[in-house]
């Protein structure tokens, strides 16, 4: 490799020190002094640009959406719809009309389960999820299957921890009504083969919902390229505000979907007493209640922030850091890495003789924020035969220093709980 190529690659790298400066909490907060934040899969911190977008919205352009006839309300509406447009471009949607602002990924999945799948589900039908789903992409499907006498099928994992699609011949069978899988596992960090899965599903007229909660922050999402029918994520895991998320649905499915929440803004005509009411079209039908303008503005600002960093660079940065961390962790005595080698952004592990809670607590005492527990993925942990893992997850502001601190903390834990009790 020539020096010039090396240089151009360096210029093409994210500088986490500079990135960190964008995040007031990591830069300045007393509570974050000496903090190595490696819990990004739970929630990410927010760049100044996102915090400002929210504050500015309240301080400069706040007003009710969709129903006001004065300039402030018109401006608020325009800004809200502009945010929808920004998100549509972010995921390559064919039109902003396919995007519903939700409370969260959790709400979005519940909306599809109750509003689209439930009314179509017959006894004996199947909904498929994978072994590695987050409870948010498991329980809503389980509930509707129970309600309808349908079956919740589980795509199991093969020996390498990957979705065993070949070993699930009924997946694309005639009784399958929907397949719901995560793009990236929140425990193991590996990316699932969404594209071929969607292609085969579509060939069999089976809709696929993709839970992109863990991919949105570091992979480029393109609903057309993925070929999915529903896609969802939360803003708070991609450096955006809490309290807002997104549901994308293809036109046909959105048109067929019943609303989860009823209320203002989603109804054209209210029936008297028990007479039927007539819902509005388009995304409005699924956004009952006063829309969350500052949430949407902050969401769009997060998109702007990620685009500014360049999503390709973000991906490479997070991936490289994960590789380095995996290597260092693998060298620690007693440490067992559960994530497969190609995992990105997320590493789950256990340490012999140390309960994951103790591992996370000792790390926490040393300023290293990792998570311990079942990560809302009990079905996966049952399969792994363990009750908890420790998990480190990486974001744009993490660097080698954070990895070093993690390694040192785990090393310390190993000394507090030596394998040979003294």
């Amino acid at each position, binding site marked *: 490799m020539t020096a010039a190529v090396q240089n151009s690659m360096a210029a093409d790298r994210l500088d986490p020190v500079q990135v960190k400066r964008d995040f007031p909490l990591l830069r300045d907060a007393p509570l974050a002094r000496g903090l190595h934040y490696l819990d990004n899969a739970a929630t990410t911190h927010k760049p100044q640009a996102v915090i400002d977008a929210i504050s500015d919205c309240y301080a400069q352009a706040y007003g009710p959406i969709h129903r006001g006839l004065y300039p402030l309300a018109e401006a608020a509406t325009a800004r809200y719809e502009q945010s929808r447009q920004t998100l549509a471009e972010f995921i390559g949607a064919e039109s902003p009309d396919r995007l519903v602002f939700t409370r969260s990924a959790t709400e979005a999945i519940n909306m599809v389960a109750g509003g689209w799948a439930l009314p179509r589900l017959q006894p004996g039908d199947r909904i498929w999820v994978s072994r590695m789903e987050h409870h948010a992409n498991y329980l809503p499907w389980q509930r509707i299957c129970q309600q309808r006498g349908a079956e919740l099928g589980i795509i199991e994992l093969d020996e390498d921890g990957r979705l065993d699609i070949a070993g699930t011949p009924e997946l694309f069978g005639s009784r399958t009504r929907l397949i719901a899988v995560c793009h990236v596992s929140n425990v193991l960090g590996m990316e699932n083969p969404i594209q071929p899965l969607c292609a085969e599903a579509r060939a069999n007229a089976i809709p696929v919902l993709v839970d992109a909660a863990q991919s949105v922050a570091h992979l480029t999402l393109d609903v057309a390229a993925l070929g999915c029918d529903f896609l969802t994520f939360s803003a708070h895991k991609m450096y955006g505000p809490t309290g807002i998320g997104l549901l994308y649905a293809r036109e046909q499915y959105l048109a067929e979907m019943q609303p989860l929440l009823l209320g203002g803004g989603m109804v054209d005509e209210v029936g008297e007493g028990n007479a039927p009411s007539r819902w509005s079209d388009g995304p409005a039908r699924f956004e009952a209640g006063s829309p969350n303008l500052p949430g949407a503005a902050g969401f769009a600002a997060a998109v702007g922030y990620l685009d500014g960093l360049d999503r390709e660079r973000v991906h490479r940065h997070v991936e490289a850091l994960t590789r380095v961390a995996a290597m260092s962790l693998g060298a620690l005595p007693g440490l067992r890495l559960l994530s497969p080698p190609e995992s990105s952004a997320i590493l789950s592990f256990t340490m012999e003789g140390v309960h994951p809670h103790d591992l996370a607590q000792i790390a926490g005492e040393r300023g290293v924020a990792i998570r311990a527990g079942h990560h809302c993925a009990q079905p996966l942990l049952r399969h792994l035969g363990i009750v908890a893992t420790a998990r480190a997850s990486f974001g744009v502001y993490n660097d080698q220093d954070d990895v070093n601190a993690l390694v040192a903390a785990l090393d*310390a834990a190993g000394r507090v709980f030596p394998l040979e009790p003294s």
Partner: protein
Amino acid sequence: MIVDHSLYKDTLLRHYRQPHNKCDSELKDADIVRRGANPRCGDEIEVGLYLDGEVLREVKFRGRGCSVCIASSSMMTEAVSGQRADDARHLCEDMQHWFQQGDGEGLAAPPADLQALAAVRAYPARRRCVLLSWEALADALDAV
């Protein structure tokens, strides 16, 4: 290595490494056995009472859990073995109270041999770990 305000005090670690009254097999011969589980972290503790009338002649436990959970179980069995059931009940209540409070101002300190658990009060997320065996004990005492 570990900072001073660490949760991991010597006593706690000692009880974790060499728990008292911990069995590896089922508590078959106990008069009363009760189970406590924290599904959120997968910890499970079984507590067995060996009675002598109204007196807890011996209290044993088995199960799995983090260091806080195991140490608390060990200290619990130590603290109540030999006590009257009524006194054990009071201690259970005190412990619940002591850990459930937001900041616990104005609460009486626990007996000296349980002081090592005091550090856990600063970590609300670990309260369930401390209390698991105490809740199982309280359940068992209800059956005395």
